[in-house]
């Protein structure tokens, strides 16, 4: 095959080939638009109730039984240090990292890692 023949055949195939690829995908695009028109209904903008988390959270902390919370914390520390609860005494505790709990953060990270 000479170079001019190669040029001619290459150009012809490229036009026909790319043309077919575009034609098929454009047809699919039209089908998708029809499908959207048939099956998709614009969701009505639902009035979202604004939840104010702050007061709720505070109310909850008031309700929590201090003794129970301390018992849970003691048990957690004891198990992580491999010791008995009798060797520990909790003097004070406070919440760190207000925005998002560790479990919540770990859950979100795991979901993202799994999908992408």
């Amino acid at each position, binding site marked *: 095959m*000479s170079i001019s*023949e190669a040029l001619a055949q*290459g150009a012809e*195939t490229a036009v026909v*080939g790319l043309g077919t690829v575009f034609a098929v*995908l454009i047809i*699919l695009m039209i*089908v998708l638009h029809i499908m959207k028109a048939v099956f998709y209904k614009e969701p009505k903008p639902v009035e979202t109730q604004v939840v104010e988390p702050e007061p709720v959270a505070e109310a909850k902390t008031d309700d929590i039984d201090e003794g129970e919370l301390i018992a849970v914390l003691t048990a957690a520390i004891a198990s992580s240090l491999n010791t008995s609860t009798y060797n520990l005494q909790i003097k004070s505790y406070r919440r760190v990292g207000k925005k998002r709990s560790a479990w919540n953060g770990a859950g979100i990270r795991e979901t993202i890692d799994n999908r992408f």
Partner: protein
Amino acid sequence: MLRQMGEAMQQGNILQVIGTPLMLVVACVLLYLAIVKKFEPLLLLPIAFGMLLTNLPMELGQRLMHPQFFIDPQYLIDGHDLDMQMIASKGGLLDILYLGVKLGIYPPLIFMGIGYMTDFGPLIANPKSLLLGAAAQFGVFAAFFMALILGAMGLGFDVRDAAAIGIIGGADGPTAIFVTKTLAPALLPAIAIAAYSYMALIPVIQPPIMKAMTTKKSRSVVMKQLRPVSKTEKILFPIIVTIVVGLIVPDAVSLLGCLMLGNLAKESGVVDRIGKTMQNELMNIVTIFLGITVGATATAEQFLTPQTLGIIALGLIAFAFSTFGGLLLGNIMYAVTGGKVNPLIGSAGVSAVPMAARVSQQVGQKENPSNFLLMHAMGPNVAGVIGSAVAAGVFLAMFK
């Protein structure tokens, strides 16, 4: 082996002397890339080991693989049909497994698993993505064109070889293998290795082109959130695609039909058990067979040719031009919509799922850290899979 080397040395055929050891070195380099550099290890590792097995110096009868049974007209019935009797009686283990490649069984089975793992939701939500998936097939035809010219200049590529080389630009391993085993079986190892290596290199190849072709302003466009897609649409999509493609490009159906069967198995939600087999056991088994036998076709006389170098260069050109095509249309969309479309999602039309989409996300986030392009880029990305399968069907229809 030493005797053979001595004979070859006397004939002055240097390639025959160093060919086998050189191929063993190439196999070890590929093993290194797979194990240490983690280049698509799931495929490259079996490919490289297959290469190692096939290049061990053994007598003809002991060999695990005889690529000449599938290529050399001397061994074919009437010069073109496989001699199954001979393969069954004289073939080694890998010859038998290679039948799955040669008869076109493995790539569609892999596509079934890919279909099960693919979510066409972002594409259904944004049908324009299909155009980007089509534009990113530009590289396929650009590489085809250049391969033809190189062939005319004396590198020995004919039209069928050029088509098989072009399909590297589809950035889809199974598709490339499917086309090559039919059109240019002698080039199979080089094309498969080029396709899988460049897929692994997408995060290196694409970003410079993306930055050169877009402006800072267009890169930081934040796109509107995609609409939710109903289950009905997701179930209908694979069925419709199969029918439409089947009517226009029947040669693409063995790949796309299996892709869509896998997807339907997922979206319908009624065949969980077979779905699990498709995406795990079946796909893994087939991947092992495919990798090891494709690697095993790379004997010294098949692989150590000037053509291999040409294929490696053209493969890179194919990937670059596919990226270029997608970005070009992305830029046009950016202009037409008045800046609502981020052109970076165009390069994701190169169908290496999900690497190309991830690259769009990363490049976009560098400009605007609060921008999440990933879901927008997944649309063109899965459209690219359909696009490259259609391009493959076109080549098969024209040159089979």
